[in-house]
């Protein structure tokens, strides 16, 4: 009896010493594995350590499309094609799990602080003429992208860049047209064979035709009828606001746009 008690106690002791240590090591290994996968496939859009960029930041406790780990695994596995997140590749269950564990671990990081004042930012938006080209909750002009839920899709640093250097952040391939991966809101200059010039935004295009709009109307051209088709890749019709915003205006505007999370 004594002998068996001793053995039993010894067994418990071993478990106490090794069990938690092993589990922790496994967790660390899995997080590291998830991090490697994330760096390779996700960081270009979601930022190193999930700080966000062209894609939303992931270093927050609640992810709107991934309320639980199963949903997060599904998003990684299938992508969100209609929002521009591609289905990248096939994953083993172990790879998916490692990425979920790593992404969840990011919520312990401190998200980049948004220092500006939301209400002041709203005033900056209104007095800077942004609404002449952008719609928020149904109000505004329609030449540029809608911003009603922009805070849910773009990280603050990315929005900041979009304001001071719009051409660097031209949206890519989220809309059904003109197609996955293309620059959207692309400025084009068209000159027809009879000398008519049109400057506007590409609405859609195929190998034989292009559709263009400006502030007032829609144009449909057959490429064979054009003497010039200048697709101004890398440029934006939006003026840069670098020199137009003073003091804390930029921080305030970023704070306001970051707060826009949809029609809530």
């Amino acid at each position, binding site marked *: 009896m004594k002998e068996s008690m001793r053995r039993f106690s010894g067994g418990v002791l071993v478990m106490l010493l090794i069990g938690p240590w092993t589990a922790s090591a496994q967790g660390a290994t899995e997080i590291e594995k998830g991090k490697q996968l994330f760096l390779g496939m996700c960081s270009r859009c979601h930022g190193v350590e999930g700080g966000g960029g062209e894609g939303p930041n992931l270093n927050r406790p609640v992810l709107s499309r991934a309320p639980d780990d199963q949903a997060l695994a599904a998003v990684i596995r299938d992508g969100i094609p209609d929002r521009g997140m*591609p289905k*990248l590749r096939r994953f083993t269950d172990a790879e998916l799990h490692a990425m979920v564990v790593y992404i969840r671990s990011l919520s312990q990081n401190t998200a980049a602080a948004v220092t500006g004042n939301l209400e002041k930012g709203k005033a900056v938006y209104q007095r800077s003429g942004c609404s002449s080209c952008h719609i928020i909750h149904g109000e505004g002009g329609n030449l540029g992208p809608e911003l009603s839920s922009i805070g849910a899709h773009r990280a603050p640093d990315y929005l900041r860049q979009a304001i001071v250097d719009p051409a660097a952040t031209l949206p890519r391939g989220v809309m059904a047209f003109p197609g996955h991966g293309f620059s959207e809101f692309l400025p084009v200059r068209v000159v027809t064979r009879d000398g008519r010039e049109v400057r506007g935004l590409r609405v859609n295009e*195929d*190998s*034989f035709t292009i559709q263009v709009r400006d502030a007032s109307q829609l144009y449909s051209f057959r490429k064979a009828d054009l003497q010039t088709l200048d697709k101004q890749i890398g440029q934006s019709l939006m003026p840069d606001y670098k020199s137009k915003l003073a003091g804390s205006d930029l921080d305030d505007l970023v704070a306001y746009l970051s707060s826009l999370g949809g029609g809530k």
Partner: protein
Amino acid sequence: MRMQRFGLLLICAALSATYAQVPYQRIAGADSNPGTWVTYSGNYQAQRYSQLDQINRQNVTQLKPTWMYQMRNPGIVETSPIVVDGVMYITEPPSTATALDLHTGRPLWTYTPNIPQDVIIIGSPPVNRGVAILDNTVFFGTVNCHLIALDAKSGIVRWDVAVDDNKKGYYVTGAPLAIDGKIIVGVSGAETGIRGFLDAYDAKTGKRAWRTWTVPGPGDANVESWGGTSFQHGGGSTWVTGSYDPDLHLVYWGTGNPAPDWNDDTRPGDNLYTCSLLAMDADTGKIKWHFQFTPHDVHDWDSTEVPILFDADVKGRRRKVVSMANRNGFYYVLDRQTGEFLAGAPYVKQTWTDGLDAKGRPFARRDADPKVTGTLVYPAISGGANWWSPSYSPKTHLFYQNTREMAGIYYKGDAEYKDGTAYAGGGGETKNGDAAYGAIRALESTSGKLRWEFKLLTPSLTGLLSTAGGLVFGGAEEGNFFALDSETGKPLWELQLGAAVRSPPVSFLIDGKQQIAVTAGSSLFVFGN
């Protein structure tokens, strides 16, 4: 009395014309009967060329719809119709065979087998590229890996055989190839770690005549090109219809990637006969020669492109050659009697190799191998070319290929074999966007040198048809269906069909008038003048 007999004969003749009677000789002689389209690529040489010239450079702008047909089920349509004796035979996604009245497009019969709910299709969408016909029977493969023979007149099943076990990931998407008395069918499934093969079945009974493994087994030649036991799940699918030389009695068929696709840790060596072209004896399936385009592939560069046969003067003498624009970005010309490498040149931008040696073996760059963090390589995962058919014109001696200019990022991942699950070991991300584009290219058929190109806004997945009317028909991802001048590439006609064009065009006659058929989205269009 004599008159009566004559009348009876006429009735019999009329009846026999409406019954599908496509003996082997009729397929072998397809070029002398251009009003029909009796095998996947139009003839055994797989040239996808029509000798009809009623539709030509002068009148192609007058093309108008003859009829349209809407597929019964949603899904990607890649079928290449068979047209003979007043009937068009097509497949619809995922595994339905349908016969249409050639005059109206009205269905005559349709057959859908029972596909289990838990069917395993890993590695491609659930598509089907068409039927084969021989005598009075139509043959097609299914996503649960059956080969089915249907009576061509009624659609009633003659026989139905399991080619292999779908639970292990085997499935069929390609059109079978009918030769003399045999139906040849390939399989998909390398992304589940199948061991690939090409099968031939007796056309009358469905009994298997031969099986040629594309990955050798224990004791077989070249098994040493696989590390350890990796050959057991070595991939090597055969999912695109090959070609046939009746005189040499050889079947030519491309093979797919080794498994796992992007993780090569367990499979050191060349991994024969993956990413290869096999020349096989039509009676026995015995491999007469092989040529491996991409030894030890790590980019999923299947060689399941259509191998085209033609004769040409190469290296100082007349030769029987086979050519292929390979997914790996190179165009190859081989002697089809011996497999000797005659010429090879890149036809799209490629960064995975420093070129080919004198025997056509690539100097593969190992820094282009997939990594966990990704490796940028040209071409993208879909390749410079892929399953969509090229075309060869014996009139221009040009090889027409729909090409893709696009980079990809290749990722290495984990790979663990388990029956019927993904065994891919990573994957590829395509760099879509402003910089990527497609191009219809005309290559000099004995060298691969570019003669002309017609650029497309985006890379497309459409096969091509060239014709004696001096035209090349092709399609675009954005829905344009168009005709180019086969000598210059100049666009002559275009129509927006409203959805991506994914099937290769075919041509035939209705009541003596030339027609062109193609699909876009879920619709099949027939155009005539």
